[in-house]
């Protein structure tokens, strides 16, 4: 059966070993593909130390804009920079409001049978927040609405048996 694209979540942030990374998430009916859109070089430059490290410590790469609706799913999935989570491998999925924002947590099994946990913080794309503010919506409410829409997206994308076990605390 052909894989169907269900939704696109434009921005989440995952803390990596070399600093935070921004991903867009393409949800299909079979998997979640976290597509790297921007990474910082913080740790790389920080390792240089001193004034140089401090000066460029927050340098970020240019954002990559991905044509989610047209991009080849196999290519996105096989790209080492991206993270692909087959929905059939998900053992636990939850979205909850925490002190640092809305956190999406996915526990899943890799193809090698290893258990992994992916923690992603929902982040609002700059354009989104700007637009909401111009409409008189507070940041807090914009985040809440965004998390609600992420939940809707996952509810559409997940197989019923996985979706039924998902925990939504938003």
């Amino acid at each position, binding site marked *: 059966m052909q894989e169907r694209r269900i939704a696109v979540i434009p921005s989440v942030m995952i803390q990596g070993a070399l600093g935070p990374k921004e991903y867009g998430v393409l949800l299909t009916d079979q998997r979640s593909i976290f597509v790297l859109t921007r990474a910082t070089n913080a740790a790389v430059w920080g390792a240089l130390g001193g004034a140089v490290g401090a000066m460029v410590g927050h340098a970020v790469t240019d954002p990559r804009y991905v044509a*989610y609706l047209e991009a080849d799913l196999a290519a996105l999935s096989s790209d080492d920079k991206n993270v692909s989570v087959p929905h059939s491998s998900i053992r636990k999925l939850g979205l909850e409001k925490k002190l640092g924002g809305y956190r999406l947590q996915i526990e899943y099994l890799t193809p090698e049978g290893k258990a992994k946990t992916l923690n992603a913080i929902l982040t609002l794309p700059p354009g*989104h927040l700007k637009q909401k503010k111009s409409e008189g919506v507070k940041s807090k409410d914009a985040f809440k609405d965004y998390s609600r829409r992420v939940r*809707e*997206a996952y509810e*559409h994308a997940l197989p019923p048996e996985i979706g039924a076990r998902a925990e939504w605390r938003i």
Partner: protein
Amino acid sequence: MNKGKVLLVVGVVLALIGLAMIVYAILPAEQTSSETIPNGAQNAIYWSVGGLMNGNVSLNFSVDTGTVNVYVFDKTNYDNFGNGVAFDVIAYAPNLTAGVFSLDLPGSGQYYLVFDHGIYSQNIDQVVTVKVKITGTSIMALTVGVALLVVGAILAIVGVMMRRKEPAAQKTQGPTDVVMVGQQTPPPPPTK
């Protein structure tokens, strides 16, 4: 990497190279070298310098054995000297074993410092050691440096302007909200 960033990086690199060349053009140069005048009355050795604004050559030389004659020529008279016809000198000092002198170059052309055998020294090999300090501004290096600096600065400015424009154009390409594929975006919930 986007075009603006490429232009910015190339511009900055060119500007830095240009700046380095300008500094190089202005800084004095020092060199020590040795050359041998082979035995034979017709033999000579030379060093040349040119392309300088406000050029000055300070020279400290010595010869290992015998004596040498020292000449300073412009291009025309150097050719005349080489061709064995009448020549004029800018400076001339005969039969020296060592010497120190400083000379302001009259113009930006090419000048030649020539050593040949002094009296009673035509039949021996003579090693001349020269320590030279050249001051002045290298016209070629200055021109290239300024050109690179200007081109680099222009490229960098264009790159910065492109970078300012590019994000706005790109942002419209990526989604700014959760997109449900194949569905209309639901209207926001009614406010109470």
